């Protein structure tokens, strides 16, 4: 990390971190009057350009090299909870709250590895449950309220809902409770089984990782 002697280790919103000629703005920063400026309170991290200047080390990389790669400055609060918003392509964990004939309403609990403090509502439409034989999918044979589902964000959706999809082998129900109130284990791609009563229930099962 060269030439970063004048960069402070911590920043508050409004703190000038460096000129845009030398740095690229990362998370927790913005640009104002030609400078990268902190927009959060936290510690400053400088991420060197992915491709180190000088002789290229990896010649097998086919990306088009930019004219000039800059170190990225980010500001983040270490060790404390930081809220993030679900974004398109994120893998989320959500709890099913309500079933409707054409869609299931869920509440997103975790985005990536971040456990959320606030709850965002999502919807899994019937056509987004499975990748194949979409016309045969029935919502009530795929989910039950209380299930925990691994899903992918496909759209930021409307004012209230994020649109989610479970149309992939790895996606679907990962935790389920039976009618009798016991934990269940997945037995096939479309069934969970209550180990105590031996009764199976249909679900869109996520392939156990």
């Amino acid at each position, binding site marked *: 990390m060269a030439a970063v002697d004048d960069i402070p280790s*911590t920043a*508050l919103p409004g703190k000038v971190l460096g000129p845009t000629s030398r740095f690229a703005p990362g998370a927790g920063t913005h640009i104002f009057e030609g400078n990268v400026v902190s*927009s959060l309170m936290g510690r400053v991290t400088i991420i060197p350009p992915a491709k180190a200047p000088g002789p290229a080390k990896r010649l097998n990389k086919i990306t088009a090299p930019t004219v000039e790669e800059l170190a990225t400055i980010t500001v983040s609060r270490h060790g404390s909870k930081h809220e993030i918003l679900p974004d398109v392509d994120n893998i989320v964990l959500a709890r099913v709250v309500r079933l409707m004939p054409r869609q299931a309403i869920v509440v997103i609990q975790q985005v990536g590895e971040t456990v959320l403090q606030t709850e965002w509502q999502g919807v899994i439409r019937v056509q987004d449950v499975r990748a194949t034989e979409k016309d045969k999918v029935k919502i009530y044979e795929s989910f039950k309220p209380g299930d925990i589902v691994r899903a992918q964000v496909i759209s930021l959706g409307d*004012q209230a809902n994020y649109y989610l999809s479970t149309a992939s082998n790895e996606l679907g129900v990962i935790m389920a409770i039976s009618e009798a109130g016991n934990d269940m284990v997945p037995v096939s791609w479309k069934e969970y089984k209550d180990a105590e009563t031996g009764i199976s229930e249909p679900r869109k099962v996520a392939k156990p990782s």
Partner: protein
Amino acid sequence: MADRRRVNGPGGITVPPIYEAEDLPLPDRSRQPNGIRAQYLKTGVTPSASGSAYLEIEPQNGSVSKGMKLTCTVHGPRSLPRSAPFSPHMVLSTHVKFAPFATRQRRGYLRDSSERDLSTHLETALRGALIADRWPKSGVDVIVTIIEGDQARQVAVEQGIEEWDMMNVLGGCITVAAAALADAGIDCVDTVSGGVAALVPGKDGEEPVMVLDPVPSEHEEILAACCVAYLPSRDEITNLWLKGSLSSDANLQRMLIARAVHASKGSSQAVAASLTEAALAG
């Protein structure tokens, strides 16, 4: 109309104590005209909130008041209520409330007009600092509770000139809310801070003087006052509240605003020191 959801007490009229003697001798301003009171700031006082801060403004020597105390909690980003229309950016809502024991007169639980006024000023002050488009279709609630106000002067209440106190309260609200927003990790272009300046009559009939961070109980009379919400790194004002009788001299108004900005710079330095400490710690 009694609020049946609270304990209302006796049906008859109760009155606050009426004292035999006049007010205690009021303290005189012992600070320099350009001095502001010391401030103590602490973040994270309400761990279950997204962000929070507590601000205490040091009491004056010999004053009855024990200084101003405010807490602020920030909740967000959170999902908007189902009924809310789509918003491509973060929706800010502010709420300022005095605790019933914060002022000389006991205040009720319902928000009164001065509290609504403060909420609106605070909203404008913060909106100019917030980078709202970073957080689409989400909301943030900023709630300031005034635990202890400045006001310690009977005549102020009787004459209904509480508004001077409101200026100081607003300055504190802005500063504490900015700290709580920073604690919550919500993007802002700058750490906004509040500052107040006032024009008071000079001693022994001399020319009026301008003072920073005026405590109304320390002055016989306040001619005009100004509260700004100021972005120190950008040199921008996000909210300006000026009132009182100033001559039409534009210079005087400009001066008063400049003094208020000066006061906010002072408070900004104090706040920055506490926040940097918090940033290092966590």
